[in-house]
């Protein structure tokens, strides 16, 4: 078994991204039931979401800059070049949306959500947007991964599948 640093960083960035999405969903559910008692928990979950997204940014960025060029060359020669030209290009720029939203989430969650319905609605919207955009990015990652896989299959078998 040969697990390289590239493999570890690749998996770690996807995992921290999922944890960021889950933390945002945690904020969403807690905010639906916002009370004085869970205000501290909402703020902690919002900070965890932000920290997970920062970690995803660092890990994903490191992998993208150091290891992705090889995958990109492979994908572009394979039967799914759009896995890079459409999905990777969109993913790498769309990532800044949940990143910025996750920076904002702890700020929005610092209001007294249990007495302020406007603040509650804002937190619900931001958490949901992080979840939805995060899922779109995770899905794009799966398509990029498959683009590399079918390119490798083509190089071995001489055809895509």
């Amino acid at each position, binding site marked *: 078994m040969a697990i390289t640093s590239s493999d570890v960083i690749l998996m770690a960035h996807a995992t921290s991204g999922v944890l960021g999405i889950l933390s945002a969903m945690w904020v969403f559910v807690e905010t639906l039931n916002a009370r004085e008692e869970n205000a501290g928990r909402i703020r902690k979950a919002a900070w965890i979401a932000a920290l997970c997204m920062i970690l995803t940014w660092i890990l994903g960025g490191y992998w993208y800059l150091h290891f992705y060029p090889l995958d990109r060359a492979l994908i572009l020669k394979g039967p799914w070049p759009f896995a890079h*030209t459409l999905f990777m*290009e*969109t993913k790498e720029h769309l990532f800044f949306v949940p990143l910025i939203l996750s920076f904002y989430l702890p700020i*929005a969650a610092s*209001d007294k959500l249990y007495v302020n*319905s406007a603040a509650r*609605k804002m937190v619900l*919207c931001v958490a949901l947007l992080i979840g939805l955009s995060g899922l779109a990015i995770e899905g794009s990652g799966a398509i990029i991964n498959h683009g590399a896989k079918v390119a490798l299959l083509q190089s071995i078998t001489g055809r895509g599948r």
Partner: protein
Amino acid sequence: MNTENEKLGRSSAGFAMAASITILFSTALAWAKDAYKPLNSFMDALAWHNWITHGLADVILFAGLGLLFSRTTWVERMVPSRLITFLVAAVVMAGAGLFIWYAVF
């Protein structure tokens, strides 16, 4: 939920506006550097890779605008539902705008 009579805190409102503007700016910057390669090269030179420069520009803009708007009262006076609508619209425009851009060009 009645959001018409309640206000967001000054920081919450200011940074919501900053996030919306930053998300729109980030989308426009992605289009611009894809359409105009000298900008891409310039951003490569600034911080090793254009993607790093792009991310740092977004974070600096978000923090800068957020701090600026948090010190003013006009964003705080905005109806919260309008701020929320603007933020949601910015995210939808970014998602659709980026996907369509890279699908077409």
